[in-house]
């Protein structure tokens, strides 16, 4: 494990989920996979953080869920982003940018 979710800055997981769902609707497992894949395997999110975060976002109204049945006959819950979620994503992305620029400017000061 390279990085546990606990090491993620508070709230970043929400940002990551929203960003990934903004690209396409996905189910929980695939969201976790996509995070690992897009971060070049730097970030890994286990179900213990992923699902509570998804449910929190759902309750906040930033994502919504739809059930479907896959070829194996299992019920699968697909999450997609809502318009409010997109607004939230923009705001959080901007915040993150400011924060990371600020931190970088201190840490990598030459």
């Amino acid at each position, binding site marked *: 494990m390279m990085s546990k979710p606990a090491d993620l800055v508070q709230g970043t997981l929400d940002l990551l989920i929203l960003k990934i769902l903004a690209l396409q609707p996905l189910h929980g497992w695939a969201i976790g996979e996509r995070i690992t894949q897009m971060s070049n395997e730097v970030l890994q999110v286990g*179900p*213990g953080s992923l699902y*509570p975060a998804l*449910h929190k976002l759902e309750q906040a*109204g930033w994502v919504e869920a739809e059930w479907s049945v896959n070829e194996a006959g*299992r019920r699968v819950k697909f999450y997609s982003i809502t318009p409010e979620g997109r607004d939230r994503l923009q705001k959080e992305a901007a915040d993150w940018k400011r924060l990371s620029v600020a931190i970088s400017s201190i840490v990598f000061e030459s």
Partner: protein
Amino acid sequence: MRFTRTLHFLSNWLLHRSKAEADLKDELFDYVARQTERYLAAGLTLKEAERAAARDVGSLESLKDTCRDVRHTRWIENIWQDLRYAARTLRNSPSFTLVVLICLALAIGANTAIFSVMNALMIRTLPVQQPEQLALLGNGQASGTNDDFAHNEPDLFSWPFFNEIRKHSPVFSDILAVRSFGTTAYARYSGAGDLEQVHVRFVSGNYFSVLGVRASAGRVLLPEDDRARGASPPVAVLRYGYWQRRFARDGAVIGRTVQINGLQVTITGVAAPAFFGVVVGSLPDFWIPLTAQAHNQPSSDELFGPLTQSLWLIGRLKPRISLAQAQANTDVRFRQWLHAVAGSSPSPEQMKKMERAHVTLTDASRGPSRLRRQFSRPLQIVMALVGLVLLIACANIANLLLARSSAREKEMGLRIALGASPGRLLAQLLCESLLLSFTGGCLGLLLSFGGVRLLLAIVASGGTAVPLTVELNGQILAFCFGVSVLTGLMFGVAPALRLTRVNVSPALKEGRSVSGSRSHTRLGHTLVVVQVSLAYLLILSAALFVSTFRNLEQSGIGFDMAKVLVLQIDSGSIASSPAALLNLYRSVEARIRQLPGVDAASFAELTFHEGHWRAFAWPEGAPRTEANGIQFNGDHVGDQYFQALGTPIILGRGFGPQDTMKSQPVAVVNETFARTLFPHVSPIGRRFSLSEQRDDGIEIVGIVKDVRYESVRERPVGAFFVSNSQDIDPDGYSDLVIRTRLSPQQFIPEVRTALRSANPGLVISGQKTLTEQVDDSLGKEKLLADLAAFFAIVALLLACIGIYGVVAYSVARRRNEIGVRIALGARPADVLGGVLHETFSLVFAGLGLGLPLALLFGRVVGSQLYGVQSNNPLYIAVSAALLSGTSLIAGFIPGRRAARLDPLIALREE
């Protein structure tokens, strides 16, 4: 926003709880399945893959909990679990649950019943639009008719004043008038044969519009119905409850005519369902415009005269006008009106009276009520008493829970050892208590309906039911719910706290845990001491109230009450003139006297507790001014009145055939009258006048003993009696008083037959023995005595159960010790003595705590007592003895069991 979303989730959860749970399960299952597939693809065996996936997920249940947490549904889930667990636990011990539920249902039911009556009488506002805007002129203390020139703060007003004050009022948007007393009348519907007794309230035409009460059928009264005296055709509006009872809500009743005491009225409508009028404790069947009376009483000038004051006036304040502003304005206008009535040259006496006359305004949002004045205090006392019973019941249940808790120590110890948090356990135990108290509360609410009926029946003993509508409303529900929750917390918290502090290791060990039980015993003892002290308070107060009632009942009213029958007779509609009425009375009296077993029979205008006729009297020769006159009670009676009641004639004679319209006007007076009006001289042959204008020259022919006329508690009142033969009250309402040697109740059918044969039109509107009439006047004393005695018995029983429980538990806990002592040679008497000693130390501690409480309570209710002091040493001692004696039995049963203990069996158990 956050709150509404939570609410949304909560309702969602409630509706789709199982679906949400299934979704959560499926979603996580999907994850596990995909993870397993990935490990399979990576080349692991199925078993290894499954194990690896499960490791990734960790504890599935705790993950679910975290998800529920996020959704704010975890606490609901917890409560739900707790409730189901509590219900299961309670189902497993049905006898415990049953006992607790019965205790709770009785205690909460009694509290709710008394609160319901208090609510209807003292708290509830009138079912009209914006009742807080209503203001009553005066304070509604007086009812009846008054013809004095106002000289103080009047409660009653006349028709002309009502019409005057309504005009262009700057403070009231309008004012309504209602006759201060209801009328019991006899109605005959067109097409129906029989006379029916009904209650009529005469009101002004704007009555319903001022109150903002609509009709539920037809139309309500309108100002046009009350325009001018006798000018509008007489109409009537029915009360909804009467319409429902008498006509089963048949709309066809509208437009029907009905003859009420000879007045032909047309029914125009039915009032709104909840509306019972403005007077709490009076339920009219009909509302009829005041002016309608002019139709059948041609000489009605008197009814509408400026000094015929019989109306209560209720105004609706204009917006932003305070009661004080309205009062100032009304007072000025009242005095202006008095000046106008007195004319251009008022007498000095009238001037003096006008200076003293003021109108006060009182809040009328709850309506005027004589019943409220009479019963507020007794109801508050009873409320306090049942509150104490509830406390005793709580202590009992707490003790039961404590006893049960020792059996559950092991369970709790195990759960704590397995990691349950004390808070969670506490919540679960409280959930159990609240489930109990809430179920008890629901049962209690059901019981309270019966309780209310019982309460009203006690107050109405012997007579007609108390006309008070008591309906379930939000306030009563809230009270019942609040009491239930409070009760649950009261009896639940202490045992629950104790259980969650269980020491894990000793609790899990085999055998009896001694440390826990000792603190349990201490708590249990404290609870029993509190119970005993409260029960003592209840018993002592019951003794005081019962003896008050007995004292009043036995002090009586000054004459022999047994075997006297009083029939209320209405003959107004059949005798058209005073002479005809007198003939009717005489023929009825003669017929009744002929019946076997009758000693005497006589009509009388008023008998005990029926109100009064107060009149000024002046001795002959004295100037007849109001300052000079003295007010006395008067009565119009028949010849044998004093024999019928058994009032001894001390001096002179009673009335006889020699007293006629043409002979000298005579009167019989009582001792106080004679002493007051003619001190130091023999009153026989003296004359007095009842009229300010002319000298009546009424001669005193007899003196009778003082008796009580209106209330058992009254001080001696001066009274005079005039003969029906010389001065008859023409309205035809009268009492027929019969003294019989037979049982009065068995005698009634014969009397009715005799009355029918005298005149079939005579209406008997009521029949009572004099004893019943006296009992009726003691309604509030009877209420206090009955309820205090009942709840004292309940409290005594509960306290004894409490003592029994604690002592029995302590005996059971000390079985080994007692066994050893018996084995070592202790006699059974010693063992029994030891147990009784424990019992008595509890009882005496309780008495010691209870006595000061009871004395304090006695002082608070002192004004309600009669002929007994609240610190009466006899009652203090007898109540204490009663309580100790009964608890002796409660202690004796476990004591005897202990004394008979077989040491071999007891010791083998260890």
